[in-house]
């Protein structure tokens, strides 16, 4: 049942020009950044070769690319998630889901899975760029996959927040702005702290993403993302239930 809803969400995305546009724009921007990094490697090739323990090509390219990808997707994910529930509420199609023999949990998980599939597709296309380097060299697989895993977790978190914001309103634009605001806030939380050890810094999304880029898989970071996702999914379910109970 979750799968049924997820595939419809995915199909709805691809039936509108939105998904294609997003895929294309994100790919172009990230390709530009990727090529910039390649150029950098070429420029300093000689100097790198002379260094004692020079950073590998993966280390130069992948963390930077994925770091930028996170920022770009922070801007883009709200556009993908804004319609999830808000548009159904606006078009009054929610009744179809509510009067079918499915639970709120299945509805929410289905919608979440649909968006997640799309984001993973985006991620796969993004991964193709560093993979193309295999044509002329080797990659540090550990660093590469840890970075991708980090980005996947981050995107799942984005999607969960976006889904929740979408359940709050019937205007997709409002959902998009709220999601963007919430994500940006989560991202920059640590800017306020003086040292690095404040509560805010600990809550910051960015601080739990960075270790993945450096190739460090800390289970605490993974748990942080899992908790964030679960929290917002549960909130979404509660919110839809309230829809039915409240007025």
């Amino acid at each position, binding site marked *: *049942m979750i799968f049924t809803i997820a595939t419809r969400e995915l199909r*709805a995305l691809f039936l509108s020009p939105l998904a294609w546009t997003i895929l294309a724009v994100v790919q172009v921007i990230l390709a530009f950044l990727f090529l910039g990094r390649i150029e950098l490697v070429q420029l300093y090739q000689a100097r790198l070769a002379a260094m004692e323990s020079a950073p590998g090509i993966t280390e130069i390219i992948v963390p930077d690319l994925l770091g930028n990808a996170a920022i770009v997707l922070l801007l883009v994910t709200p556009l993908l998630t804004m319609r999830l529930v808000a548009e159904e509420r606006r078009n009054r199609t929610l009744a179809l889901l509510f*009067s079918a023999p499915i639970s709120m949990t299945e509805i929410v998980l289905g919608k979440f899975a649909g968006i997640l599939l799309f984001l993973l597709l985006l991620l796969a296309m993004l991964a193709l760029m560093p993979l193309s380097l295999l044509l002329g060299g080797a990659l540090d697989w550990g660093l590469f996959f840890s970075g991708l895993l980090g980005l996947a977790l981050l995107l799942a978190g984005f999607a969960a927040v976006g889904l929740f914001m979408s359940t709050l309103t019937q205007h997709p634009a409002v959902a998009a702005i709220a999601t963007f605001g919430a994500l940006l806030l989560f991202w920059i939380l640590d800017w306020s702290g003086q040292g690095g050890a404040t509560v805010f810094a600990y809550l910051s999304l960015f601080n739990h993403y960075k270790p993945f880029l450096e190739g460090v898989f800390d289970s605490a970071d993974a748990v942080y993302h899992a908790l964030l996702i679960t929290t917002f999914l549960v909130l979404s379910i509660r919110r839809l239930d309230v829809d039915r*109970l409240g*007025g």
Partner: protein
Amino acid sequence: MSDAVLVEVSHVSRFYGALAAVRDVSFTIHRGEVLGFLGPNGAGKTTTMQIISGNLAPSSGSVTIAGHDLLADPRAAKAELGYLPESPPLYRELTVDEYLDYCAALNRIPRGQRAQARATAKEKCGLHDAGRRLIGNLSKGFQQRVGIAQAIIHMPAVVILDEPTVGLDPIQIREIRALIRELGKTHGVILSTHILPEVQAVCDHVQIIHKGALVLHERIEGLARRVKSATLAVAFRAAPDPALIERLPGVHKVESDGAGRLRVFHEPGQDPAEAIVRLAAEKCWGIYEIAPERASLEQLFVELTGGEPAAAEAAT
């Protein structure tokens, strides 16, 4: 036709803050019944239907669908339920076939039977040629049909239709009514509308809700008994003084249109027809037409809701 109870609504109330949208409503629907659900605008029709369809939780009371409590066991109850809301819940970017397949999947029809279920639903709603068209490009009438197809695709025991004939042309209305009658043979149907002739045409039970409370639940045939006065339509060549007729025994009220036609409201069972004819012959009024008017639902509706007849007429 078995008369198993399909829907049992007992003491359902729903409050929006202090406002009671629905107050202590109870009724049952048996298999093979078509229940017409009437009420002025804002009387609580849609709220009640949303509650029965599981889209809205009642503040108190319980709803049982085909033996399953809607609140305690929503999945089993909703599997026996098809609902067409006021505005059909359609995804405009899908084709009719894609949409109906999705609905079939949502209603847990096994994969192998979906094509069959879709074909049957399309056949019943006259959609055979529309399968590959985008829902967004269909006319309002066809969209309405897709909405109905969606509600019956899983052959639910109970079908709830909220104003299914709004926006349709007369021929489509006839087809949809025939479809509803057809559905009524094997399912239990709840039909909300404010088109009164529609109720007389397709329903076998009528229920009127007013200000959140049920004021009538009656079989169509039983309606006549409920009407407080019966009516005679009389036409004269020479218009008489209505006061003369008003004096006859059993007559409540006489309405004149000024051109010789009168409507005589009288006590049921005390038919003044003979007396009027005798009087007309004596006074040479030139009576050329006299006929009892069928106890109309409209009359009853206006009596029970104390409302403006204009509202009822505007709907027809």
